[in-house]
């Protein structure tokens, strides 16, 4: 046989939301606490007498995600309980949405090597995360820091036809959610279940479906899909094994998938409505508020940056970090030039952070301070080098840029005659350097330049100094 096969994939993606508190209590949200069980209260550890109280922000972020993925936002949405026993699940049930999810029927368009592809979104629902087990010695320990951290689960229709499409989709979700402030999408904050089947090309019927659970890295997802689809094809083509509907796990080391449980032994989760949480009604007024606060769609935003002259590479950097893209947006809003500001952030700030072994996530510069520096440069009060000096002080010690500039005398206007007299002095004091230069050692000029810069404390434009110096030395 020489049949061609089509791979059919549907995805369930869990994304940790970027909220200040957990979904049903006031414990801190996504920001990872340092010690186990640091971020736990009677509610999220499932003690008797506690009641869940809905975090409004979770609803707003879920709606925002739904708007970004072109979903219907359901005005009436409810929570259900999913029952199963596991030590990391303190109540022995998870609060999730089964019957009335918050968003349904969306669509996202992917750019692939074969053109644009539409992936239909079946639904987005809100739910709480579980805790985690830590095994050590003869004991197992439970850490509830992650219990009740808010998640959204995005369920697609079986519309993917290759591992590449899946990875493109996940990268798009990631950029969208980061730039939209929905999730930081850090390591482990985005987890996928992959439903996969194969069928002869042209066939309308679906093949036997298997589900690979809980993968956190895009690379693992890609490898798992490639392995699993080949396993299905081999099973059909060479009758190597009988395919059954089952849940599998991907082993990162061997690169293979292994059966966890099949359809017959699948748990009955006994879903039912959670009586402790009243239905949530999203009225028009609230929906409009969320729409108004919604960040622009990622494609529109990237296009705007592109029009402003920001390079594709810089756009990629901005799109993958919500913090710096909002710093850029806020600084532009204060009247600064987009392209110039992007350079200040992506080149100058990045350089300073790198020197200190830090990343953009450590950057604490406010848009107001950055704009103050850029404006001083633009208005010619200081040159760019001085601006950079001030930026270092702002990044490292959070000084006030205008006050810092004054204190250090950076804002003193240095007129041309003052510069000239400094240069003359330097020439007069360095006869040996002049002689060396005349003898063809061009490097000697750099020493003179350095001396001028030192004396002028960087207060004059280096380019101007260099030109003046060179002309003077040459004419000697």
């Amino acid at each position: 046989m020489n049949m061609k096969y089509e791979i059919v994939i549907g995805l369930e993606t869990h994304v940790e939301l970027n909220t200040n508190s957990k979904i049903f209590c006031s414990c801190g949200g996504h920001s990872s606490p340092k010690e186990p069980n640091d971020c736990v209260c009677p509610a999220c550890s499932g003690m008797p007498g506690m009641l869940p109280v809905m975090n409004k922000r979770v609803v707003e972020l879920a709606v925002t995600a739904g708007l970004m993925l072109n979903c219907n936002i359901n005005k009436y949405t409810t929570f259900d309980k999913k029952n199963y026993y596991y030590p990391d699940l303190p109540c022995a049930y998870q609060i999730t949405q089964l019957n009335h999810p918050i968003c349904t029927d969306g669509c996202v368009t992917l750019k692939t090597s074969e053109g644009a592809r539409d992936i239909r979104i079946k639904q987005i629902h809100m739910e709480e995360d579980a805790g985690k087990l830590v095994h050590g010695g003869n004991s197992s320990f439970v850490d509830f820091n992650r219990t009740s951290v808010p998640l959204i689960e995005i369920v697609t229709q079986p519309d993917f036809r290759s591992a590449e499409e899946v990875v493109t989709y996940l990268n798009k979700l990631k950029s969208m959610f980061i730039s939209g402030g929905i999730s930081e999408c850090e390591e482990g904050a985005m987890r996928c279940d992959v439903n996969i089947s194969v069928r002869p090309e042209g066939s309308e019927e679906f093949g036997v479906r298997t589900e690979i659970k809980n993968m956190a890295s895009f690379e693992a997802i890609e490898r798992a899909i490639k392995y699993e689809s080949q396993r299905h094809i081999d099973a059909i083509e060479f009758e190597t094994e009988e395919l059954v509907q089952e849940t599998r796990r991907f082993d990162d080391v061997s690169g293979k998938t292994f059966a966890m449980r099949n359809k017959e032994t699948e748990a009955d989760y006994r879903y039912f409505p959670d009586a402790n949480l009243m239905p949530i009604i999203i009225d028009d007024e609230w929906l409009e508020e969320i729409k108004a606060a919604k960040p622009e769609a990622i494609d529109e935003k990237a296009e705007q940056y592109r029009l402003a002259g920001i390079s594709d590479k810089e756009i990629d950097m901005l799109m993958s970090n919500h913090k710096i893209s909002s710093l850029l947006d806020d600084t532009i809003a204060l009247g600064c030039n987009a392209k110039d500001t992007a350079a200040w952030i992506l080149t100058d700030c990045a350089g300073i952070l790198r020197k200190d072994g830090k990343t953009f996530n450590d950057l604490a510069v406010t848009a107001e301070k950055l704009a103050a520096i850029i404006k001083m440069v633009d208005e010619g009060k200081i040159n760019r080098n001085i601006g950079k000096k001030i930026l270092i002080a702002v990044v490292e010690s959070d000084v006030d840029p205008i006050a810092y500039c004054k204190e250090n005398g950076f804002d003193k206007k240095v007129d041309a005659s003052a510069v000239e007299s400094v240069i003359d002095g330097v020439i007069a004091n360095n006869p040996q350097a002049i002689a060396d230069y005349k003898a063809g050692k061009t490097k000697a000029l750099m020493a003179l330049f350095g001396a001028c810069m030192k004396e002028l404390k960087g207060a004059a434009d280096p380019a101007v100094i260099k030109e003046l110096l060179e002309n003077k030395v040459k004419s000697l």
Partner: protein
Amino acid sequence: MKYYVTQLNDKGNIAVDDTLLVKGAVTSAGSRILDGFKPLFSAEAVERLESKGYSVSGKTHVGEFGLDLVGEFSYYSEKEDELKGAAAELVANGDVKAALGVDINGAPRRAAAMSGVKFLKTTYGTVSRYGVISTAASGETVGVYGKDTDSIKEVVSVIAGHDDKDGTSLRHDSYEYKNDLDITSMKVCIIKDLVNKADDAVKAEINAFVDSLKADGVTVDEIDCNLFEIANTAWQILMTAETCNNVSRYDGVKYGHRAKEYRNIDELYVNSRTEGFNFLTKAVILYGSDVLSKNRYKDCYDKSLRVRRVVAEGIEKILADYDAILTPVCSSAKYEAYDINEAFVKVFDESVFTATANLTGIPALACGKVQLIGKAFAESTLLSLAKSVERKGE
């Protein structure tokens, strides 16, 4: 210690059932599975009373999770031949001004009937359930035991009100309770079928109560109504399902009772729960798991949710014509000790009188063995009718 699991203050004026949390006091809801559990916070109702100067005398015995007739199956109390509720007895003896209880399936109302006192099951959503050891979340409510309507009125006025910590707490305009409304033009209907289920002693008490109302100008009619049987079946389904789910957190991992013998996590769960729950709770868990299972959900749980709406509409219709519905609280004037193996069926049958109020969230006042049921937020009507009968006894 006959009535108390833990006595906190012998000058205290409010007793609190062991299904409600009191900060720092061992709270086990009558169950071994919560043995030694010390809550980190008090129930909202307890907090409100303490902030108004009331003090908690102690935690009173309840049947495990409040699921039995009147409190006969507590892990912690001694067995008696004649069944009485601990909090109701304390109130009857005059040891405390009032007591707080949680009405899940009628136990506090029946306890009031056995001790000849009153228990007000409040409208769902008017008293915060924050700090209730929850079993049947969609119908359980905090209520008040009192010897007379004055004390109930006083205490319920303190504990009722919106609470942000409870997502089902309502925002009502006023939480003012009265027991002196003019009842002379009020109309009450008696559910004939339910009265027929009661023994002669209960019937006699009902007749005396009705005569007293009539003497005060209240119109009393007898009506036929089949909703109570249907409501009971629906509530037993919802109540067991929700209870099964809510007690599933008691697994021996985090607090309370943990079995000594286990070789793995499954045995830790199974052995702890086998030892920790009594036979009635186990029956409720099994029944509740069954009605939620994939094959039964639609015909049992889902249908019960729809029955709830039908019953609520039917009762609403009756209460459009009448100010209150009058029924017995219990089938007999006395409960004798019985074997726990019979408990599930016994409680199921006896709840035909009480389940409608749990299912639909409306208030019910047990005045001895007579029950008055009213519209949502009509507690004052019930208290005023009861007050008129009370006055004759003075």
